[in-house]
C-alpha cells in the first residue's frame, strides 16, 4: 500500500516537473518539484528555518495540549454532572460552528501581538470539539459493560481505566484529531495573516516576495508536520485502547 502511495505521488510530481520545464505550467507560479524537494532537504540544516519550524511546532503543541487537557476535563465534567451537560452542550456545539477565529483582533489586544495570542485562539477553537466528543464518548459507553464491571466489584478507577476509557477512546480521539487539525490550521493561518511566528509567516513573506520555491518548501513542510502529528495521535489512540 505504501509503495502504491509513493509511486502515485512520484508520478504526479514527475508530471508537474515536465509541465513546468516545458512551461505548460508557469514557473513563476509553480516551481519545479525537484527544486522544492531540494529546498526542503537543505532547509533541514538551515538554522533560521529550523527556528521558524520550532516556533510553529511549539505553538501547535502548546495549543493542542491546552485544548486536549481542558477539553477532556470539561467534557468529563459535562458528562458527570448531567444538568450541566444538558445546559451547556448545545452552547458548546453552537460555538463550535461559529467563526471564532474572527475574534483574533481581541486576542491581539488581550495577549499582545505575539505567539501567545495565536496559541490562545487556537486552543479556544480546538477545545470545543474535544469537549463535545469527550462528553458524547462517555455518554455512549455501553451500560452492560459497566454493569459487568460493577458485578465484578471493580473500583471506580478500574471501571474507568479498563472499561470506560477503552470504550470511549475512539470517539475521544476523533475529537482530538479534529482539535489537532484546527490547531494546525489556526496557528499557521494566524501566523500567515499577522506575519508573526514561524512557518505561516515564512509562507506569507515568500508569497509577498514572489519566491515560489520557498513558498512551496514551507507549505510542503507544513503538510509533513501535519501528517506526522496525525500519525502520532493515531499511535496514542492505539496505546489508550490497550
Amino acid at each position, binding site marked *: 500500500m505504501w509503495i502504491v502511495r509513493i509511486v502515485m505521488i512520484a508520478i504526479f510530481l514527475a508530471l508537474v516537473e515536465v509541465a513546468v520545464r516545458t512551461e505548460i505550467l508557469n*514557473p513563476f507560479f509553480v516551481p519545479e518539484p525537484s527544486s522544492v524537494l531540494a529546498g526542503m532537504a537543505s532547509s533541514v540544516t538551515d538554522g533560521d528555518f529550523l527556528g521558524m519550524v520550532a516556533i510553529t511546532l511549539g505553538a501547535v503543541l502548546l495549543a493542542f495540549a491546552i485544548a486536549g487537557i481542558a477539553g477532556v476535563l470539561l467534557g468529563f465534567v459535562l458528562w458527570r454532572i448531567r444538568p450541566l451537560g444538558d445546559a451547556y452542550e448545545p452552547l458548546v456545539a453552537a460555538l463550535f460552528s461559529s467563526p471564532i477565529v474572527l475574534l483574533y483582533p481581541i486576542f*491581539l489586544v488581550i495577549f499582545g501581538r505575539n505567539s501567545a495570542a495565536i496559541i490562545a485562539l487556537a486552543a479556544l477553537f480546538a477545545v470545543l470539539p474535544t469537549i463535545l466528543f469527550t462528553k458524547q464518548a462517555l455518554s455512549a459507553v455501553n451500560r452492560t459493560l459497566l454493569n459487568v464491571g460493577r458485578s465484578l466489584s471493580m473500583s471506580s478507577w478500574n471501571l474507568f481505566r479498563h472499561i470506560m476509557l477503552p470504550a470511549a477512546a475512539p470517539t475521544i480521539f476523533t475529537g482530538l484529531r479534529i482539535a489537532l487539525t484546527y490547531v494546525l490550521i489556526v496557528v499557521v493561518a494566524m501566523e500567515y495573516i*499577522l*506575519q508573526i511566528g514561524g512557518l505561516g509567516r515564512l509562507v506569507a513573506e515568500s*508569497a*509577498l*516576495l*514572489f519566491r515560489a520555491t520557498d513558498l512551496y518548501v514551507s507549505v510542503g513542510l507544513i503538510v509533513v508536520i501535519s501528517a506526522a502529528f496525525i500519525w502520532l495521535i493515531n499511535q496514542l489512540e492505539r496505546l489508550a485502547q490497550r
Partner: protein
Amino acid sequence: MRKTLTTMTALATSLTVAACSPPGSSGSEEEGLTQVNIAFSNPTIFTTGLPYYVATDQGFYEDAGLQVEATFTGGGAETVQAVVSGSADIGTETSGAAAIGAYVEGAPIKIVSASTTGLDLQWFALPESGLTDRSDLAGRRMGYSATGSSSHIGVLALSELLESEGLPPIQAEAIGGPPDNLTAVQTGQIDAGWTQPPFFLEEVANGELVLVADGAEIGDYADVAMRVNIANISFLEEDPDAARTFLEVQQQSWDWIFDNPEEAVKIWQESADLELTEEVLLTTFDYYEREELRIAPLDGQDVLIADAVEFGFAEEPLTDEQVSELFDLSYLPED
C-alpha cells in the same frame, strides 16, 4: 444525460477560457469605453485614493474613454500581486522595491511611471510612551502597511540608520494602514505606527499623540520616486493606449487637485467617507508639492535598486538590460 454533459462541458470550457484569458481582455466595453482594472493601495490616503476619486467624480476617465474598475489593496507587494495575477492591469502607488523584487523573481510587470517622489511618512506614538525622537525607536516595535510597501522600506531604512549609530534595530510588524496602526499603538501591540498627512495631525496638535520620526530624516529620498505605478506586461502589449490614457488621466487628476484644493478635499471627504473636517484635510497641501506627485520623470532608479538589494527584495543589482526592461517609461504622456 447527454444534454447535461454538453452543458457541463460548455461551462467548463468557458471557465477555462476565462481563466486563461490575459489580463485586460476580461473587461467588457460599455458604450465604447475601454475597461481597465486598477489596483489602488490604502484608498483613503491622499496620494493613493484621491486621484481616483477626483477622476471618477469629474468624469476624467469617461472623457478619456476609460471605464476604471478599482481593486483596493493593502499596498506594497499586495498591489504587485494583484497586477501579477491579472486581477489588475495597473497597480498604483506601490514601492519600487516591491516591484523590483517581483520582477527579478520573474513577475510579468513593468514600472511605467513615478507616483510619489520623496518619503512622505511620519511615525507617531502615545505621549506616555516616552518616545520623543527617532533614536528612541531603537529596539521598539514599529508598524508598516504591507511587506514591500514604502512604509516597510521606511522602517527598514530607519532601522538601518539606527544600527549605523550603534543602536538596536527596530522590530518591524505588518499592521496595515494608518487607522490599523493607531489601534495597534493604542492597544500596546506596537510602540509606534506610521501615517501620512493629514491623518492624526489633529491628535498630535491636541497632545493625544506625538510624532517621533519623519521620512525626511531618513536617508536621501527627497529626489527618489519611492512609489511607482506598475502594469502587467500582457495588458501593455494588448492595449498600450489604455495604459497611456490612464497615466494621462492620473496626471490630469493631480493637476486638477492642486488647482482646486477646496473642491478636491470635498470629493476626498465624501468618497473616502472620512470623518476629518475639510479644514484639516486642506492642511495636506502644506505637506505636498505638485512636483512630488508628478508621474514623470522617474528619479532615483539607482536608489530603488540599491534598496531592493539592501533590504532583501533582490539578491543582486539589476543589469542594464533588466533596468531598461523593467523601467519602461514609453507609456508616459508625450509632454
